């Protein structure tokens, strides 16, 4: 049995359809931002409330009570410089995972580049990170860390790296979730696990040797480490960046591959 579908559409050439796709992606993302925070007077406050609250709690519980401060210099910045990128990561991943399933009505009734949906979920969370970044930098400066020239290169580079990682991972999870709906709750559990495995609340050197291989399996740990090294020590092209780069490339390849292979079956599975 062979099925062929041909379309001769006189209108858009590739370039124009790329630009309309970008327009649509931007419009959807802006709409989601507006809708989510409209009517909340302190919308901006809510964006930074989560990392700051968790940061404070962890600082008191671990830094003061368990006295990690003794082992980790500048423990408050140690926490915050990891928590901000972490919330960007976890927010994007959990939102992207459900995005195809949640928009099944749209996908079945309207023809458009489907990749827009996970991209907009990631972009939405990226915009939050970008807007809260000055707050993070503010805390770093207040803590007495001098701004480094390296930040100018490091921040955009790490953001690009994390953005690509999230696009890959988000597309992969959103695609697989269409066919395997248990993935949603699984991702929630995995994120909880990754939070503790990402060495966000403690430095990697405190981890006993026998647990190191487990930590190494974690796709975000190197990236979180890279963010921290950048803000705490002004280091950028150190050890952590290379595994982060490799993981990003792998997730991007895997995500786009899975999406490409499975996209045509969406119509029947949604």
């Amino acid at each position, binding site marked *: 049995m062979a*099925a*062929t579908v*041909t379309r001769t559409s*006189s209108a858009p050439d590739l370039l124009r359809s790329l630009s309309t796709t970008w327009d649509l992606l931007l*419009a959807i993302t802006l*709409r989601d931002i507006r809708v989510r925070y409209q009517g909340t007077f302190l919308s901006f406050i809510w964006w930074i409330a989560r990392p700051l609250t968790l940061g404070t709690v962890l600082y008191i519980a671990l830094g003061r009570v368990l006295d990690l401060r003794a082992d980790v210099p500048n423990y408050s910045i140690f926490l915050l410089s990891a928590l901000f990128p972490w919330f960007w990561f976890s927010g994007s991943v959990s939102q992207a995972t459900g995005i195809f399933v949640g928009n099944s009505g749209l996908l079945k*009734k309207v023809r458009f580049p489907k990749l827009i949906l996970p991209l907009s979920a990631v972009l939405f969370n990226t915009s939050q990170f970008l807007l809260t970044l000055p707050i993070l930098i503010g805390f770093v400066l207040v803590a007495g860390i001098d701004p480094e020239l390296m930040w100018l290169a490091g921040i955009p580079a790490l953001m690009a790296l994390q953005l690509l990682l999230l696009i890959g991972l988000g597309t992969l999870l959103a695609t697989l979730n269409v066919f395997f709906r*248990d993935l949603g709750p699984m991702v929630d559990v995995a994120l909880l696990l990754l939070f503790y495995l990402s060495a966000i609340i403690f430095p990697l050197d405190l981890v006993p040797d026998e647990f190191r291989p487990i930590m190494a399996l974690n796709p975000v740990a190197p990236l979180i480490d890279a963010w921290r090294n950048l803000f705490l020590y002004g280091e950028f092209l150190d050890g952590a960046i290379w595994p982060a780069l490799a993981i990003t490339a792998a997730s991007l390849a895997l995500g786009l591959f899975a999406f490409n292979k499975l996209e045509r079956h969406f119509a029947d599975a949604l």
Partner: protein
Amino acid sequence: MPSKERYAIRLKGVSKRYLLSRTTPLHIRDMLMKPWTIRSRLAGEAFWALQDVSLDVRRGQILGIIGKNGSGKSTLVRTMVGLSPPTSGTVSVHGTYAALLDLGAGFHPDATGRENAYINALFMGLTKKRARELMPEILEFSGLGKFVDQPMRTYSSGMYVRLGFSVAVHVKPEILVIDEILAVGDADFQQKCFDHFAELKQQSATIILVTHSMSTLREFADRVIHMEHGRVVNDGDPNAVIDKYMMNRLTASPAARKVFRRSLEAQGLLPEEAVEESTPGGVER
């Protein structure tokens, strides 16, 4: 720029099979508790939503599609516009198209009508610039007045249709596909739509209309096809196809047949064989 093809849409031997198992996603629960079911799930029971449909739609034609619920009408139009890939057969579409298959597909309930209309236009493939230019016209045509700046969750379904339809026709598609939603609009708006169809038709746009409103089709369609069990069972002049369809429906159930026969008896015209023969395929399920 209109395409030079004589046909807007050509389907050749198109079939669509749904594997019933694949339409429900895999769950860990089933894999763990009932591993023996996995194999049968993967093999699965098949349902043919479309069976060997061949159809050429000429450019500038207004085509009506009728048939009972579940007869394959929606699958057919979704296949035409590429939302559902056929299992076998060939689909070729020539020209740009806009499809209005659902109330509110792509509308965000918390965004305003204005914002949704704009995004909807982008969904239909317009550039940002073109969409901005068309906005005043679109909003004007919808007749929603000051409600365009209210969130769409406050809209009635009729208002949804008004906005969706306004966008779809202003995109100026060469092919416009509408799946049974106009019925929700009020008489005024329906009239406005049909006037607009006439205008689109003049620009040799092709319009495909799935509807249960026979009077609409009698008035506007150039051609009607009747679907049953995923097949095209009748195709041709709107009045002829609709008459036969209504007749079959009237005589579908034994009770209806009795009533029908009695009324014919009363009028002194009893085509006995005709009534028996015209038992439609619909009841043998």
